[in-house]
Structure formats: C-alpha cells, structure tokens
C-alpha cells in the first residue's frame, strides 16, 4: 500500500499511541517519513514495565501475526530497512521462538530489554540497543528525526502495531486493549471501545466489584487512583485498570510500594528524581509525615523532572490522598 494511503487511513482512524502518551499516530509516522535519511528504523516497544499492565503479553500471545504485519507496514511506509521488537526478559523467553518463526527472513530483530523500568522509556530504549547507559535522552531531537544510531526512528507500542494491521485491513473499530487486574473478579485483557467510560469497561468485562473498592488506572505505579464514584470518564493513558479491595488492601503498604518502586527505578540522571525519590522513601519511613518536605519534593518532581518517570511520581500519591484518604488513617 502506498505510504500516503496508510497515513490517510491512520488519520481517518484517529489512532493514538497505545504506550500511554496518547500521541496521534499518523503525525509520528509522517515525521519519520519527512526526516531525510538513507537509514531508518522501526521499533516495537514491548517493554511493558509498568506493574499490573499485561496487554502486550496478550498481543504477543494472541495477536503476534497482526503485530508482525503492523511492523512490516510501518517499515514499508517509512522506508525502514530494519526493525526491532524490544521485549522484556519474560516476553523474550516466552515468545522468542514463535516470533522468529513468524518473522522468517524479514529484517526484524528481537532485542531483549535490560532490567529496569526506565529501560522501557523510548529514548532509554535507544540507549539500551546501542549499549549505552540506561538514561533518557534529551528531547529535542526526537527519535522521529534522530533516534537509533542517530537515524530517524519510529517507536510505537506493540499494541499500536496490532491496531495498524487492523486499520490496513479496515477491521479497526475504535477499540483498544484493556488489561484489568488486581482484585478484579474476572482479570484479563479485553478489547473494547476506547470511548466508553471506566464504569462501563468494568461492567462489560464483568469486573464491576460487589465489594468496596478503588482503582488505579494507567498503570500500577504511575497511574492515577480513583474511588468508585469517579468512574464516569473514559480511560486515558495506558489501557490498564487495577482494582483494589478497599477492606483487604493494606493502604500504607501500597503507598510505600509506589514510593519504593520509584526510588528503585529512578535512573539517577536528574536531581529531582534521583534525590527526590530517595528522600520521599526516607520521609515515608518515618512515623510522622513531614508534609512541608513531601510537598516540596512532589512539586519539583512534577515540575522539573527530566522525564515522565519523575514527573509521574506525584500522580498516585496525590490522587491517593485526594480520592481515598477518608478511607484510611494514613
């Protein structure tokens, strides 16, 4: 299919990136097409490092054929000679063989992601493939003009390529993948409209709990926490809902889990994240919380972090306090 036809189809579909940032796909593809270079790359990001999210696992397990088709369409459209499928260690082990069989002679390489959350961030991923220190790069330049080994690179989430394959065959109907887990009655991955509200997603997947609950949407670390009355909006970001049983969840432990996660996964490049997450962990270990310090730290994390990891630290913490604090003594 000619490149411009695909771009038109992507434009008509309104497809946005499934990695979480929600960027318009056709714009990203067009940027790589417009970048002048004899060498271009396509990368399918299957890092899926966000705790509690498992929709890419579903794509690899059930939709691998479409995934490869989507990648090939991308390669053809942006005129890339090579592509990478970037997989976390678990996926790499599980799906290496079937994927290689599907890939055949095409120049699509599998790359095993090094350990760590930040290695899933799209510019850190480039450093990982190039064998460099695992830290995000400055943007601009964006990977679309200066990506892998300095060449224009199209990086999309695995699910995005699956959706592209559907679009190419006119089988895309505005659906997306939702992974629903935690204390969910029927955990799994569900293919539903991206327009419906969270409550409807839970109802349609038979996951609306009968018990008192709250949810975390968009990921089990960086995602926003909502109480059961706040589900009247569509889900943005990563397609993930984690259900917590309010009575059975140790809220203090959960809060500490998030903080520990960020402190452990911070790459250490910028001051607010390296030092701020370290200090947050220190502060939350104390019995009495010093909110003047915590407030200051969350402020610089949100406002001044180098990348989205640091920038998202306040999301779960603040929404937790704002939306379900009454339910707890923390």
């Amino acid at each position: 299919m000619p490149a411009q036809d695909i771009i038109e189809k992507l434009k008509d579909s309104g497809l946005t990136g499934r990695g979480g940032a929600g960027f318009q796909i056709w714009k990203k593809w067009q940027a790589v097409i417009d970048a002048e270079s004899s060498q271009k790359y396509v990368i399918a990001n299957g890092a899926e490092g966000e705790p509690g999210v498992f929709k890419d696992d579903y794509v690899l397990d059930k939709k691998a054929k479409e995934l490869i088709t989507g990648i090939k369409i991308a390669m053809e459209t942006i005129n890339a000679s090579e592509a990478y499928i970037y997989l976390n260690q678990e996926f790499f082990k599980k799906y290496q063989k079937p994927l290689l069989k599907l890939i055949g002679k095409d120049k699509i390489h599998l790359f095993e992601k090094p350990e760590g959350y930040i290695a899933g961030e799209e510019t850190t991923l480039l450093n990982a493939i190039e064998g460099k220190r695992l830290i995000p790069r400055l943007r601009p330049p964006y990977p679309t003009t200066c990506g892998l080994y300095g060449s224009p690179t199209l990086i999309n989430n695995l699910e995005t390529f699956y959706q592209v394959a559907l679009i190419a065959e006119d089988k895309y109907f505005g659906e997306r993948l939702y992974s629903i887990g935690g204390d969910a009655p029927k955990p799994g991955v569900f293919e539903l409209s991206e327009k419906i509200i969270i409550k409807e997603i839970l109802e349609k997947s038979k996951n609306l709990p009968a018990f008192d609950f709250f949810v975390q949407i968009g990921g089990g670390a960086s995602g926003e926490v909502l109480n059961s009355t706040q589900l009247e909006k569509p889900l943005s970001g990563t397609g993930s809902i984690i259900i917590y049983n309010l009575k059975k969840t140790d809220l203090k432990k959960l809060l500490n889990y998030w903080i520990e996660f960020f402190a452990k996964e911070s790459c250490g490049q910028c001051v607010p994240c390296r030092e701020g997450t370290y200090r947050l962990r220190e502060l939350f270990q104390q019995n009495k919380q010093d909110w003047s310090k915590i407030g200051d730290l969350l402020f610089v994390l949100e406002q001044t972090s180098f990348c989205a990891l640091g920038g998202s630290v306040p999301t779960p913490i603040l929404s937790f306090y704002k939306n379900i604090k009454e339910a707890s003594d923390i």
Partner: protein
Amino acid sequence: MKIIIDKKEYLAEEGQTVLDVCRKNGIEIPALCYHPDLGVKANCRMCLVEIVGQKKLQTSCSTKVFEGMEVITNSVNIRRARKINLELIVSSHIEKCATCIWDQNCSLQKLAREYGVFINRFSDRKKDRPTEFFGPAIEFDQSKCIDCGLCVEMCQKQQCNVFEVKGKGSETTVTAERVKDCSYCGQCVVHCPVGALQGKGEWQEVEKALNDKNKILIAQCAPSIRASIGEEFNLPYGQVVTGQMVAALKKLGFDKVFDINLGADFTSFEEAKELKERLEAKKLPMFTSCCPAWVRFVEVFYPEFIPNLTTANSPQMCSGPIIKTYYADKIGKKPSDIVTVSIMPCTSKKYEAKRDEFKFDDGTPYIDHVITTREFAYLLRRKGIELCDLAPEEPDNPLGKYSGAGAIYGASGGVMESALRTAVEWISGKKPESLEFTKVRGQEGIKRAEVLVGDKTLKVAVANGLGNAKLILEELKKNPKTYDYVEIMACPGGCIGGGGQPVPVSPEIRKKRADSLYNIDKEMKIRTCHENPSLIRVYDEMLDKKPELIEKLLHTSYLKKKTTKE
C-alpha cells in the same frame, strides 16, 4: 528573531538556547551542570524558567528559542523549584568548606546564600563515599560529587575515558574505573562545578616549608600564571599581574622568586637544537614534550611514538635543576639545601615533579612541590594577602630574566613558535622575516601550517586537547610524513586553559588569557630564547664548560606505561 524575556525584548538567533540568550544579555540564571565546553546535560534542573504557554517549568540550557517566545526567569514557582533542587544537590555534597580550596569561590556556596538554602534540610547522604587519588596529581572526593557527569564527558573528549557512571537512582556513582589511563591533565577538575575533583593538595606542604628556616625557598611561576591569577581576586579575565604575582610570593615568605619563563627559554633553546639535528638526520616528525599530560598520553596509549618526543626537558624541569646546580653553586649551597616550588596552571605538573627522571643522583628532586594557580590563590587568601593591593616587584637575579619567546609558552602554538624563532635563524643562517608565526596561534583545536626554514618547507601541526592530539597521531600512523614538527598541549587552548587554572573557564576566557601572553611578548625587547642574557650566562659559566651537564640536566627519556587493559 525577537524573543521576550521578563517583559523585555531581546534579539536571538536560531539554534540558541534560552540560557545562551540570557547569559549574553547579563540575565543571571544558575546552572551547575552546564559548561560551554561540553554538551547540554540538563540534569541539575537549576536553570529553570517559565515559557509562556507551557505547563511545566523548563530548563533554559536545553530549550531552544523560537520567534515570539516569551520567557520568565523569576517567579515564585521558579525560585521555589530552584531552591528545593538546590537543597537536594547540597544534600548529596558534603560541605568540607573549611579545608576546601574553593571556599569563598564556590558556586554551590554562592547559590546556597542567594537562595537562602538551609544546607542541612536533608541529611548528607554521601558521607561514607571514598576519596580516590589519580597518581600524585588529582584527588576525587566522591562525597562531594553531585553526579552531573561533566567530568565523564570531558575525559571522553580527552580520549582517556577514566570515568564511568555506575549504578542507578541514589546509588549512582561516578567512579574512576580506569585510573591507569589518566593523563593527569586535570580537565575534569576545571569542569567540576563543586570541587569534588581537585588537584592533589600540596599547599599544606608548601605552607610547612615556608616555616622552615633551614632551607632556601625558591618560587617560580609558569608563563601562564600571570595572566590568570588575577581572576582569583576578581580582576578581569586575562589581566596580567606579573609584578604583583612576584610581590605576593615574596610576601608569602619565599626567599627568592625566579621565573619559569627562563626555563621555557632553555627548553626552546634545546628543542631548536634538536629540531636542527633531526632535520639533518631526517628523524622526523619531532613532537614537543613540555606538556606532561601529553607525554603520559603517548607513553600510555601510543608508545610507538616515544622516539618522536623531543628529549628537551619541560620549562620547570630546565629551571629546576639549573636553580639547584648553577644557582646553588653561586650561593655556596647543595641542591638539597634548596626547596623549589613551582606555581603551575596544571595538575599533571605535580606528577611530572615526582617522575624519577627528574631527580639528582642522590634522589633530590629538581622540583620539590607543585601548586596550582588555585592553590597559590588559596595560600594568599589564607594569609589575607590581597594581590591587587601589592606594589609590583621584579623577579630575582640571576634567573629572573626571560625573552618574549618564553612568555608565550602558555598559549597553544607558543612552544612551537618559540622554538621556530631560534631554529629558523640557526638553520637558515638569518633571522626570520617575522618573529610572529601567526598561523600556529589561536584557539582552534588543530592548526596546520607550512613554515619556510631556509630552503626547506616544514610541515607543522599544533593541537590542543588530547582528543585533537589523537587525531594527529592517527594521521601520522597512516602516513608518518604528514608532519615534520608537532606541538601538542593536553588542555584546550594550552596551559592558559590548564587543569590547574582558575574557574570558570570558557573559550572566551581562554582567548583573553592567550591574548595577554602575546601582548607581553610584543612589548619585550628580547624575543628569542638565544638572546636571553640569563640563559647565555648559564651556558657560558656552566653548561658550555661541562657539556655533559646539558644532557644530564636538560634532557630526559620516556618509558612505555601500562594501560588499564594491560
């Protein structure tokens, strides 16, 4: 294009960053991890500004200007964010101010004061981190390191790659993984914003020696010191303070003050002689060897080029042994009765002074102590000596006279120019048309030129920065006939940009310091080494009578050194 900063309109150029434009227009923005010599890091998150239309604060070092951009550099949010980030930075840096030579001259201290930071708001988390030593030249106190990575990049640029960043998050550690590969150039030191990297302190020993009445204490300054020491006392960049520098050393308590510019004349004299011999014997190319970091770089990474290094000693290693023989003899003393202290723009000179090649047979070193320009200023500050208030004094005789050729040693190209002024005359039998070899001057990393010497054309190259040195060596590896004579200085701009020099340093500051040295030369009556009366006297009275001393005192040898990989 036009952009608006704090409600005022400014002209900016495509490609500039907001920080560029602000600094150019005198708008102060704090930035610790930014250095004009290196790439944008954007990790200290101090240079924050607001860009109208954008939700979050932006780092001005990494934000490019666009037409109509509106920038705010001072707001409640900006000040709050800078202050908190500064508190976090300070908590990863142990304040050892009382014994730190950056005290009162430290960007962290200054910012902490400006932002009213309570430096103990968060406890020091790096107190147990070790200090590493890079030979006898540099110390790296990891408890002061703020993980900005400037040293790492600078060392990569110097092609030594000593550092590595290990770990992540708060475990991130900059370590000196390949310390054996270090040239000791000290560029990491002048690019460290917080004094975690420092020349190995010798000021303590010098202070002790100054109190020892049984020894004769002699100080000598390298050519570039007079054009940089003033900066430590808030004088304009590059202002020449030769007389005050001498007076300050006297005031510190030195018995005699000589000048390494004379040592430089000896180096040029011997080097010009060798160039003539090598030209006749066709043993080219010849490399300068007065930069110990460059010499070490060859010994570690390119030992096959050792035969190309001139055997002439570096300036401090010419004047050092002359002081301890010729001058000692004059005053009826033994070499071991004299303590020689060099004030150098360099950390590698500390290492050079410890090399076995530069000792008398009884083990007495030619140079006892080497302190950097910064250490010199620190000693003065400790004694409350205000350099600017001192009446200028002359260096002592008989080893205080120098030529313009010696004076320009501190600028990239200066060593070659000095040697050529003499060599051209000796080889062609007549004075060169102009004493100024302008083609080898300037701040470019590599300068290539052809120089007419009698009926021969000499192909020369001058490089500053070890990265550029490597390029020259690789060219020569492919074709040894590419150049006949090569000058290399390890540091950007030569010694005026040396690892022992005051901070800050930038391309503009280096240029100012270099210009000052060329101005000194311009004003000199004697501008070639072989016309220097002090030098002529030493050859007449001692060296020409015992020619074996020339080889012994003024020439050296080199040895292959092991790399980390070996």
